[in-house]
């Protein structure tokens, strides 16, 4: 290369691809910022998932179509979101998502023991409040809010 040109543009090719520690530190701090933003996003997402959420109400059945000590399956808020309505022997009603919180197998109502049983890994939930009674499920079943409107049962929301 022309000597004068090299003096004017003194590029050191060996140094050209070198990333200084400071630049690397900057890059890592940027990555750290990205992870912090991601974690804040996860926290925001999880708080949006928690609590009570209202959806378009749907009619499940007439109360007299569900005798005490039995259960009825329905879909809420979408028809593909399996849920189960339980009419307890004491006359009270409760409804839950049917998807086991372990690996999403559908739970079944067992009238003798008053619990919702998951046959996949022998998990069991209380049919009164959805809490875990046995097995690997890590969290209670989401509860479906029910309203009795003149003898008709309506699903109106979900509580996580």
């Amino acid at each position, binding site marked *: 290369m022309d000597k004068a040109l090299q003096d004017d543009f003194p590029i050191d090719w060996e140094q050209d691809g070198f990333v200084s*520690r400071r630049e690397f*530190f*900057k890059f*890592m*701090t940027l990555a750290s910022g990205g992870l*912090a933003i991601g974690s*804040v996003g996860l*926290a925001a*997402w999880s708080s949006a998932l928690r609590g009570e959420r209202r959806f378009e109400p749907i009619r499940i059945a007439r109360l007299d179509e569900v005798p005490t000590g039995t259960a009825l399956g329905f879909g809420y808020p979408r028809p593909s979101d399996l849920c189960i309505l339980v009419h307890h022997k004491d006359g009270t009603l409760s409804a839950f998502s049917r998807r086991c919180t372990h690996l999403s197998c559908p739970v079944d109502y067992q009238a003798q023991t008053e619990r919702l049983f998951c046959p996949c890994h022998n998990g069991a939930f209380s049919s009164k409040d959805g809490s875990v009674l046995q097995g690997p499920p890590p*969290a209670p079943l989401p509860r479906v809010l029910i309203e009795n409107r003149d003898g008709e049962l309506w699903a109106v929301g979900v509580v996580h």
Partner: protein
Amino acid sequence: MALLLFNLVLILLQLWLFVSVLEGMLHGKTAMALPAALASVGLCLVNVWMLRGLSRG
């Protein structure tokens, strides 16, 4: 060099927090999300503080 290693350790800690919260959320556990986010922001601030010290020094 020590600072750089410390920075790496903090980032690994953030990554671990992020992955465990995500895994917990997929299992329906959301209680850890907020404390983990606060911890992650704190670790990021430590990194920024170290970077500023490095730039000034």
